[in-house]
C-alpha cells in the first residue's frame, strides 16, 4: 500500500468516526425523553439507579405514577420503592418495562396495576412512543417492539430515527442538557392540581361480579406469574382509585379470583377508597388520576401494608440510597412551592419563607409604587427589608437563612448578573417603575411590571425556577 492510499484510508476512517460522533450526538438530542410528560422519564430514572437498590416496584400507567409516591414510603420506613410506570403503559409494555428493570435490580415485591388489562394499545400517539422508545436499544427492546408494533411500523420503531427526527420542531432546553430530576426521581409524577368535580363510580360498592377474562388477559397474568417465579419476587396486583365503569370493575373482580387461585395478593384500592380516607373533592387531579394529596394517602397506606407483609430493609442513612433522599427533598420542595403559589397575600407568603431549603434561592424584588399596600410594607419590614429600602427599590436574595441586598434601584449601577448553575442566569437592573426587563431569567422577563413586590425561587436541586409571583 503506497503512502497516498494509506493517507486516504486514514482520512476516510477519521471522516467516518467524526461523522458517526456527530450523528450520535444529533440522535441524542432528538431521541425520545419522556415517559410521563415534560421531560420526566421513569426509564431514564431507572437507568440512573445503581444496581440492586430497588426493593419494591410498582408497575403501571399514569394511574401508578400519579398515585404512588415512593418518597412517602422512603420517609416513613426507608423502603426503596420505584414506579416503573409510563403514560398509557399497555400489557405488552408492562412486561418489557419490568424485564428492563429486572436486568439490574432484584426487587422482592412487584405490584402491578391492573388498568392495562382494560385496554389494548390506546389511542394517544405520544404514548406509543413513550412506551417503546424510552427503552435503550437492546434485545429486550427489540422483543418489545416485535410484539408491540404492527409489521408496517416495526422498522420505523426499531431504527427510531424515522419517528424522532421530526422532533427538531419541538426541541427545548432539556433536549440539549440533562433534566436534573431524572437523576434522582423515583418514577412518580407530581401533580397538585385539584379537580373538585372528580367522582368515583358506584361500581366500587357493588358485590363482586367477575367478568370473563379473555385469552389475552389470562396470558398476560400468566406471564407476570412466570416472571415472578423466574426472578424470585412476590407478585401483587392493585387497582388504583379512579372512576371505573361496571365492565372494568367486573374484570378486576375476575382478576381477584385469578389471584386467589394462585395465592397472589390483590388490592382493589377503588373498593377501599373510603377506607383510605380519600376526599373526592380534594384528592383527585381528574377522573382518572389522584393528585399529590391523594397519592400521599395511598402511598402511606402502601408503606404500612408492605412493611407489615414483607421484611423490607430500612435503608435510611445508607449513602447508596441518596436518590431516595433527594427524591423526598424534591417532593417537599414541590409541596412547599405549591403552598406558596396558593398564598393570596405577600405577608402570607413571606410567613412561609423560613421553611426554605438550603437549595432554594429566594429573590425578592421591590419597586416604589404609588398607593403601596401598607400590609405588604409591614410584611417586608418583618422579613428584613426596611421601609426606606423598599421605597428606593431593589432586589434581595435569601439563601441558607441569610438575606442580602444584591441590587439597589437608585444606584444606576451596571446590571447585576447572578449565575445560577452552569446554564442559568438572572439579570437584574432597573429601567424604571413598572418597566419590563428589570428582572430577566434566561431572557424571560420576570419583572414586577407595576407590582409592589415580586418573589422568585430558583431551586438548585432541579436547576430551574419554581416560583414567580407578584403582589
Amino acid at each position, binding site marked *: 500500500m503506497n503512502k497516498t492510499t494509506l493517507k*486516504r484510508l486514514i482520512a476516510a476512517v477519521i471522516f467516518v468516526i467524526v461523522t458517526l460522533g456527530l450523528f450520535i450526538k444529533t440522535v441524542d438530542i432528538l431521541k425520545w425523553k419522556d415517559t410521563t410528560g*415534560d421531560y420526566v422519564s421513569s426509564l431514564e430514572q431507572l437507568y440512573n439507579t445503581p444496581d440492586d437498590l430497588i426493593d419494591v416496584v410498582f408497575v403501571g400507567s399514569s394511574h401508578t405514577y400519579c398515585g404512588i409516591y415512593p418518597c412517602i414510603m422512603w420517609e416513613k420506613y426507608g423502603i426503596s420503592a420505584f414506579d416503573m410506570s409510563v403514560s398509557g403503559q399497555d400489557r405488552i409494555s408492562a412486561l418489557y418495562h419490568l424485564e428492563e428493570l429486572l436486568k439490574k435490580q432484584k426487587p422482592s415485591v412487584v405490584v402491578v396495576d391492573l388498568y392495562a388489562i382494560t385496554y389494548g394499545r390506546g389511542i394517544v400517539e405520544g404514548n406509543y412512543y413513550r412506551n417503546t422508545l424510552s427503552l435503550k436499544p437492546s434485545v429486550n427492546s427489540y422483543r418489545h417492539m416485535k410484539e408491540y408494533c404492527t409489521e408496517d411500523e416495526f422498522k420505523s420503531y426499531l431504527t427510531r*430515527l424515522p419517528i424522532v427526527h421530526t422532533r427538531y420542531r419541538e426541541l427545548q432546553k432539556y433536549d440539549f442538557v440533562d433534566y436534573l430530576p431524572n437523576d434522582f426521581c423515583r418514577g412518580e409524577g407530581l401533580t397538585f392540581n385539584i379537580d373538585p368535580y372528580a367522582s368515583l363510580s358506584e361500581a366500587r360498592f357493588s358485590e363482586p361480579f367477575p367478568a370473563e377474562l379473555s385469552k389475552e388477559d389470562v396470558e398476560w397474568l400468566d406471564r407476570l406469574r412466570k416472571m415472578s417465579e423466574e426472578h424470585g419476587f412476590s407478585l401483587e396486583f392493585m387497582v388504583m382509585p379512579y372512576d371505573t365503569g361496571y365492565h372494568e370493575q367486573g374484570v378486576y373482580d375476575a382478576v381477584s379470583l385469578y389471584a386467589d387461585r394462585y395465592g397472589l395478593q390483590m388490592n382493589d384500592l377503588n373498593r377501599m377508597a373510603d377506607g383510605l380516607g380519600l376526599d373526592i373533592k380534594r384528592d383527585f387531579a381528574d377522573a382518572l388520576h389522584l393528585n399529590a394529596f391523594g397519592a400521599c394517602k395511598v402511598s402511606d397506606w402502601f408503606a404500612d401494608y408492605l412493611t407489615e407483609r414483607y421484611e423490607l430493609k430500612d435503608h435510611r442513612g445508607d449513602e447508596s440510597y441518596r436518590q431516595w433522599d433527594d427524591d423526598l427533598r424534591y417532593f417537599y420542595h414541590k409541596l412547599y412551592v405549591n403552598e406558596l403559589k396558593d398564598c393570596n397575600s405577600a405577608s402570607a407568603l413571606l410567613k412561609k419563607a423560613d421553611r426554605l431549603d438550603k437549595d432554594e434561592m429566594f429573590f425578592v424584588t421591590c419597586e416604589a409604587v404609588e398607593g403601596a399596600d401598607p400590609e405588604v410594607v409591614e410584611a417586608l419590614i418583618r422579613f428584613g427589608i426596611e421601609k426606606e429600602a423598599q421605597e428606593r427599590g431593589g432586589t434581595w436574595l435569601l439563601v441558607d437563612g441569610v438575606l442580602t441586598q444584591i441590587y439597589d434601584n437608585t444606584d444606576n449601577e451596571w446590571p447585576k448578573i447572578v449565575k445560577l448553575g452552569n446554564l442559568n442566569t438572572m439579570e437584574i437592573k432597573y429601567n424604571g417603575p413598572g418597566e419590563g426587563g428589570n428582572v430577566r431569567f434566561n431572557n424571560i422577563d420576570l419583572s414586577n411590571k407595576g407590582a409592589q413586590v415580586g418573589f422568585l425561587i430558583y431551586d438548585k436541586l432541579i436547576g430551574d425556577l419554581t416560583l414567580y409571583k407578584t403582589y
Partner: protein
Amino acid sequence: MLFNSLEFILFFPAVTLGFFLLPKRVKPVWLLLASYFFYMCWNPYYIVLILLTTFVTFLSGILIDKSKGQSSKRLIMALCIVFNIGILVLFKYFDFILLNLNKVFGVFGVRAVSNPFNFLLPVGISFYTFQAIGYVIDVYRKDVKAERNFIDYALFVSFFPQLVAGPIERSGNLLCQIKDIRKKNLFDYQNAVSGFGLMLWGLFLKMVIADRAAIFVDKVFTEYYALGSVELIFGAVLFSLQIYADFAGYSSVAIGAARVMGIRLMDNFDTPYFSKSIAEFWRRWHISLSFWFRDYLYIPLGGNRKGTFRKYLNLFITFMVSGLWHGASWNYVAWGAVHGIYQIVGGITKPIRERCYDRLNVKRNTFSFGLLKRIITFLLVAFAWIFFRARSLKASLIYISRMFTCFDPWVLFNEGIYGVALSRKEFNILIVSVIVLFAVSVVKYKKKIDIGTFLYEENLWFRWAALIGLILSIVVFGEYGIDFSSAKFIYFDF
C-alpha cells in the same frame, strides 16, 4: 427500492463492495443480478417485461447488423420499435386510449368498452424502453456496433442506478463503459468521493427540498378552488422547485452511484432555471430525454431542414409527444403543447424582439438583461408546470383563472401563508435549503462542474463540513418516517 430508503442504504454498499472485490470477469454478472434484484423489489413480475425488451432489442441489433439490405435493416428496426412501443402503449396508455374512445363512443351513442386488463404500470418502463430503442436505432445508423454479449447488453438496459428514472443513456456512452468493466480496475478515489458527494446532494434535494415543497404543493393543487392568487402563485413556484429538486435529486443519486463504481453517466440537469430562453431550458432540463427526442424523433421528422413551417410543426409534435411520454393524460399533452407554443412563438418573435431592443437601446450584454430573461423564462416554465401538476386540464384552467383573479396579498403580511400547509419553521428550512441550492447551482453554472467534483477539488475541511452538513440535514430535516404533522408539542399529549 427507493434511493431514499433503508433498503437502498444497505443494498448499495453491499453491491459496491462486491463489485470491487469480485474478479473482473464476474463484475458484469454481479451488477446485472443486483440490477434485476433492485428492479424486482418493486414487483417480481416486472422482470418479465424488461427481459422481453432486452431480448427483442438485443436480437434486433444483431439481425440489423447481419442484414444485407437497407430495407431489411429498416424493417427489423421498425418492427422492434413497434413491438416495444406497443408494450409501452399497452401498459401505460391503454386506459387513456380506452377512456377517450369511450367518450367518443358516448357522443355517438355507442356503448362504452370496458377494460379487460388490469395492468399495473411497471416502474421505469418509459426509461428503459427508450434506452433500448435508442440502441437499436444507433445500430441501424451504424453509430454503434451491435452488441454480441448478452450480459453486457442486458446490463446496459437494466443498470440499476439509472433504471427507473434515467438518465436515458446512449449505448455509445454506457455500453462502452460496461465493456470496460472486464478490462480495467475501476476504483478511483476521486470517483468514489465525488460520487458519494453527488449521492448525498441528490438525497438532500429530494428529501429536504422536494418532499417538503410537496406538502405545500399538494395542498394547494388539491384545494385550489378555495385559495387565493398568492397561495396559487406560491404553489406554482414551489412545484417548479419540487419537480426540479425531485427529479434532479434522483438523477444526482443515480449519477453518483454509478460514479462510485467508476461508470460515468450523462448529466441530466444543468441549472435549467438559469436559462435565458425556453430553447435553452430544454438544453438544460432532463437533458437525456430532450436529446433523445431531438435525435430520434425531431430530426427523423425533418428537424429544421424542411423549411420554417415544418420546423415548427416538428417542434410542436415533438413536444406534444414528450408531454404524453410523461403521463397518460391530456394535461401532460397540454403541458407539452404549451412548451411547443413557447418555442414557436419565441422563434417567430425573435426578429421582432431584436428590433425592439435596438430601437429601445437595450444593452444586451448586461447582468440586468440576463436577469430579466432568466426571470421571464422561469415564469413561463412555472406557468406551464401548472398543467403538468394539476389533476386535469379543467383543474389547471380553473387554477390559472383563480391565480389571476383572486387577489389576496395580505396573506403575506398577516402570516396567513403559514396556515396553508407549511409552518413558519418549515418555510424557513425550505428557504435556507433553496439558498444552498442556489449557491450550488451558481457554482455549477460558472465552473461547469457538478457538486461532487467541486467538493473533491476543495480543501479537506470544507469537503468534510459540506458532506457532514448534508448527512445531518438529511437525517434531521428529511421528509421520511412517521410525520408529526400536528404542531402540538407531543410531550404534553397526555
